C-alpha cells in the first residue's frame, strides 16, 4: 500500500509539468498574437513590439516555457496585464471561493445521491427507481446557468428567502451549490443503485444473510463498502465536470471565484491570468484523480500499481 502510494505520488510532478506545457503550448500555437491581444485593437506597431519584448514573447518558444516553468516552480505565475499585480495573488484571492463552491456542490450530490441510490437498490422497480431515471436525464439536460437563474427567480426575487448574489454568508452559498450539485444527484443515485445491485447479487451477501446478519448491516456494511469503488471513480470524473460547471455558476451568482477571474481575464485578453488559472484548474483535476487512485488502494487492497 505504501509503495503504491509513493509510486503514484512520484507521477504527480511529471504530470503537472506535462499539464503546464500543454496549456502553455496550446495558448501559443493556435493562430493569434498574444502581444497584439494584450495591446488591444488600437495599439500601434511600436506598442505591440514593446509588449512583445517586455514579456519575453520575442524569444524562442521553448526558452519562454523554460523561464515560465522555473518561475512556476517558485510559485510565480507571472503578472496580470490588467491589474498590474501578480497572478498568484489573484488566484490566492479567488481559489478558496471556487473550492468552497465545488466541494459544497459535490457534497450535495453525494449526500443526497448515495442514500437515494441505496433506497432504489433495496426497492428495485419502485417509484424511487423510475423517478431517478427521469431525474437523471433532466439533470444532464439542464444548463447550469438556466437552473441558476430559475432558482434566483423563485427563491430570491419571488419568495425573497435567499440573497440573489455574492459570497460571505451560508445563505449565499445555498443557491450556487444547489445549482452546481443538483444535476449530479440523480447521476450519483443511479450509479449507487446499479453498483449496489451488482454487489447485492454476490455470493458473500447471500452468505451474510444466511448467517443471520441483520439486513441493515448487510446493506450498509457488507454491500456499500464494495459498491463504493465505482462511486469513487465517478467522484474523480465528476469533480472535473463540477469545476467546469463552477465557472458558469460563479458568473450567474457573482461568486468571486477563480472561474470568474479567468473569464474576466479572457475578455480583457490578459493571457498570464488565463494561463495561470487554467494550470491551477488542471492541477486540481490531476491532484483529485491522484487522491481517487489512493482511495482505491485503500478500498480494495488487491489493486496494485503496475
Amino acid at each position, binding site marked *: 500500500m505504501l509503495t503504491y502510494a509513493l509510486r503514484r505520488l512520484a507521477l504527480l510532478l511529471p504530470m503537472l509539468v506535462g499539464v503546464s506545457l500543454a496549456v502553455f503550448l496550446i*495558448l501559443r500555437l493556435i493562430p493569434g498574437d498574444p502581444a497584439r491581444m494584450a495591446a488591444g485593437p488600437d495599439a500601434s506597431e511600436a506598442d505591440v513590439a514593446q509588449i512583445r519584448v517586455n514579456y519575453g514573447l520575442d524569444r524562442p518558444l521553448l526558452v519562454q516555457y523554460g523561464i515560465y516553468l522555473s518561475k512556476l516552480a517558485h510559485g510565480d505565475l507571472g503578472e496580470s496585464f490588467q491589474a498590474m499585480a501578480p497572478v498568484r495573488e489573484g488566484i490566492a484571492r479567488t481559489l478558496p471561493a471556487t473550492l468552497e463552491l465545488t466541494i459544497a456542490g459535490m457534497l450535495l450530490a453525494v449526500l443526497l445521491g448515495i442514500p437515494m441510490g441505496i433506497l432504489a437498490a433495496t426497492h428495485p422497480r419502485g417509484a424511487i427507481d423510475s423517478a431517478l431515471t427521469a431525474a437523471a*436525464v433532466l439533470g444532464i439536460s439542464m444548463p447550469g446557468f438556466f437552473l441558476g437563474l430559475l432558482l434566483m*427567480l423563485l427563491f430570491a*426575487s419571488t419568495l425573497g428567502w435567499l440573497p440573489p448574489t455574492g459570497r460571505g454568508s451560508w445563505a449565499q452559498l445555498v443557491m450556487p451549490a444547489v445549482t452546481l450539485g443538483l444535476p449530479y444527484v440523480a447521476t450519483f443515485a443511479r450509479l449507487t443503485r446499479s453498483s449496489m445491485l451488482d454487489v447485492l447479487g454476490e455470493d458473500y451477501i447471500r452468505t451474510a444473510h444466511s448467517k443471520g446478519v441483520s439486513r441493515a448491516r448487510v446493506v450498509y456494511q457488507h454491500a456499500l463498502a464494495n459498491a463504493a469503488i465505482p462511486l469513487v471513480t465517478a467522484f474523480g470524473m465528476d469533480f472535473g465536470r463540477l469545476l467546469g460547471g463552477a*465557472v458558469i455558476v460563479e458568473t450567474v451568482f457573482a461568486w468571486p471565484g477563480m472561474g470568474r477571474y479567468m473569464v474576466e481575464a479572457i475578455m480583457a485578453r490578459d493571457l498570464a491570468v488565463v494561463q495561470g488559472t487554467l494550470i491551477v484548474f488542471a492541477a486540481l483535476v490531476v491532484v483529485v484523480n491522484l487522491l481517487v487512485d489512493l482511495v482505491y488502494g485503500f478500498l480494495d487492497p488487491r489493486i496494485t500499481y503496475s
Partner: protein
Amino acid sequence: MASSILASPIPETPRGRGNFAAYLVRNRRYVALVASGLIIAFILAAIFVPLAFSWEEATRVKLGAALLPPGPGHWLGTDELGRDLVARVLWGARITLVVAVCSVAIALAVGVTTGALCGFYPGTLSGIVMRLTDFMLAFPRTLFAIMIITVAGNSIASLTLAIGISTIPVYARLFYAPVMALKQREFVVASRALGASDLRLLAAHILPNVLSLVIVQATISLAEAILIGSGLSFLGLGPPPPTPEWGVMIAGSRAHIASNPHVILAPGGALFLVILSFNLVGDALRDYVDPRSHAGA
C-alpha cells in the same frame, strides 16, 4: 449515460425490427416519441426560419416595443431592446443547430479516425495517443473549450471549433476498443486472407459494424454540444450580441429576470427542451440498436 456505451460490447445493427418510430410506439416509449417530434420541429425551424422572420426582425432594436409581455403580435413577448422573442428564439435554433452539427462533425471525423487507426494499428504511438486521450477526457471539457476560444476569439466558428476539438477524445476512446476487437474477428481475418487492403478492411468491414455506436453517441454529443455551447455563449465566449444565440440572449436579458421572466424563460425553455429531447432520443436509440442495454438503464 455515455459511460454505459463505452463499456458495452459492440451492438449488432438491428435487422427486421421495423423503423425507429415503430419501435417507439410498440414499446410505448411515448416520451421519446414526443422528443423525436420536438427534434424534427427544431430542425425544421432552423431551416425555414428565414421564410417567417428576417434577420432584421431578430436583431433590430425597437426601444418603443421593449419588454412587452407575451400576447397577440408577439407570442413570446419582446426583450429589453424590443425584439420579438419568437423571431429570436427561432433564429437561435438555426445557430444552435449549425454549431452543434458542425462541432459533432469535427469530433466525429477526427475522433473516429484517431480511434480507428489506433485500434487497428496498436503500437507505441497508438499507446501514447490513447494515454493522451484519457488525460484529455479527465480534463473538464468546458475549460478545454475555453482555452481554445481564448486564442481563437469570439465567434460562431471558434465556438464550433472549440466544442468540436474538446469532443474528439470521446470518439477516439469510443472506437479504440471495438475496432481492436473487430480486427480479430473471423470475417475481418478472412477478408484480409483474401487480399483486402487495410483501408478496405476498415471502411468496408469494421466501420459498418460500429455505425450504431456512432449514431447513438452522436445524438448524445449533440445534446452535450448544445449544453456546452450555450454555457460558453452565456459567459460571453460565443458569438457577440445581438446574435440571437440562446445563451447570449439569456446573458443579455438576465437583468430583467425579476420584472419580466419571459425574456429568460423563452430562450431558456427552448434550450432545455432541445437538449432534453436529444438526450431522450439518444437513450431510446441506444435501446433500439442494443436491446440488452435496456436492462441496465
